[in-house]
């Protein structure tokens, strides 16, 4: 598979065109905006916590295929996770993107392993992590705009 096909796999294209959990969470949900001023990607992550556990997570905004698919797939794998578990998942995901991942870690990532093609495109790592950085701010309880630049 060429580097490009590995980057733009069908699952990623599918999520970028039909993002899941693409909605606003009303009520007490935390709301944090993530912005990349260089490419204009802008997402709002909504996070509803129940005690220390993620009850619901959703997002809205615009971005490239990589950042949109990453945000979409992130929202699918966080429900029911504690803050520490979510943080661990981010670390594993980040290792995957920078090529420091072990096979065992890659297995644990499940569907998120589809982003392994990003490692051949270092400038796109920030696209794949924009939603995740925003989520971390939301987990910390902040209500602010975070930037990847």
């Amino acid at each position, binding site marked *: 598979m060429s*580097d490009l096909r590995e980057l*733009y796999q069908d699952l990623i294209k599918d999520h970028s065109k039909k993002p899941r959990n693409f909605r606003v969470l009303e009520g007490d949900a935390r709301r944090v905006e993530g912005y990349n001023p*260089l490419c204009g990607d*802008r997402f709002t992550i909504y996070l509803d916590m129940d005690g220390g556990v993620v009850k619901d997570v959703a997002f809205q905004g615009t971005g490239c295929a*990589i950042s949109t698919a990453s945000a979409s797939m992130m929202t699918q794998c966080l429900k029911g996770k504690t803050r520490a578990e979510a943080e661990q998942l981010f670390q594993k995901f980040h290792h995957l993107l920078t090529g420091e991942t072990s096979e065992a870690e890659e297995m644990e990532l499940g569907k998120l392993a589809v982003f392994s093609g990003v490692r051949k495109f270092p400038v*796109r790592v920030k696209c794949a992590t924009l939603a995740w950085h925003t989520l971390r701010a939301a987990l910390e309880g902040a209500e602010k705009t975070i930037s990847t630049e």
Partner: protein
Amino acid sequence: MKTAMDVLSPEPRLARPAPFDVQRIREDFPILRQKVHGKPLVYLDNANTTQKPQAVLDALSHYYTTDNSNIHRSTHLLSERATEGYETARVKVQHFLNAASSAEIIFTRNATEGINLVASSYGRRHVQKGDEIVISAMEHHANIVPWQILCEEKGALLRVIPISDAGELFLEKYEQLLSPRTKFVSIVQMSNSLGTINPVRDMIAKAHARGIPVLVDGAQAAYHTRVDVQQMDCDFYVFSGHKLYGPTGIGVLYGKKQHLDAMPPYQGGGDMIRSVTFEKTTYNSLPHKFEAGTPHIAGAIGLGAAIDYLQGLGMERVAAHEQELLAYATAALAEIPGLRLIGTAEAKASILSFVLEGMHPHDIGTVLDQEGIAIRTGQHCTQPVMDRYGVPATARASLALYNTKEEIDALVKGIHIVQEVLG
């Protein structure tokens, strides 16, 4: 076949200028010979920065190899040669812009610094609370933010000339914006994200009729069209060396002498003073008053070499080649389904900003890069322009004198691959 020239010319035919042999010219640019991801480099990111001809690389190398020393200071031979190289470059810039005097040419780091200098020095002195500064909706951030900073400091107002769907200024709106409160106009000659060439000469005349000075941001225009600051009658003109096939870190501010003379210094330091005591400092004459500290000597000399190179080719011939290429590219891109050009002004140059339906510019850029094609994607430091057209970003191919029709064909082929990979 006889041409009109043959028939009408009573005298023996004069040597005509050689045809614009782009393949020959490409040989002057060593960087273009390389492959990227195994494909020949197709460099279409010229509005961002242009590549450098061998003559510029040689001038830099020669300076550092044989003449390097500080200017305007020492009595030794190297310093004399460095000073002469630096000041000769200033005269080359003067002729390139057709300025009345070399004292009106200030070396800066880039166009951005030139605008900041004027906003800070001229602006602070002349703009007061309630005054207005007029810019346009197609300005680069470099021609927005310095004026916003000034307005915030002084309690002045920034007024913005709106643009049409095609990317042209509404000139009647411009005239309506000019009022007794207007203290300054700062406009771009050629838009970096739309390619629009603005009728700056007319706009300047309208401002001058009301006694308002005008700065023209020539960062994009200066390497595509012949610039004549006296004919244009602008009060200030700025451009960057690195877009003009010269080195990074060197730029130019032209200012009319009467303005520059009356303006306070921008930065203090060595070279910009005549005498310094702890009680009182007197400033140096123009242009040195605005060049504090050791400047980018090599950069100025490199810029001089770039100007020589461009003038050797002839700005009119360069412009004609680029216009032909732009027309070819515009027609080729128009045939691609789902592609929308942003910026379709009647008077435009070199810039092809576009969006593809359902595809983000950033993804377009990644796929094209794998094909060896370098373009820029994003907001191009013109976020208000993106907002105006309701797009988060665009993909932008921008042309220079060394680009070819074959490279446009490669771009079109690349866009088809983008649609296949991302579709």
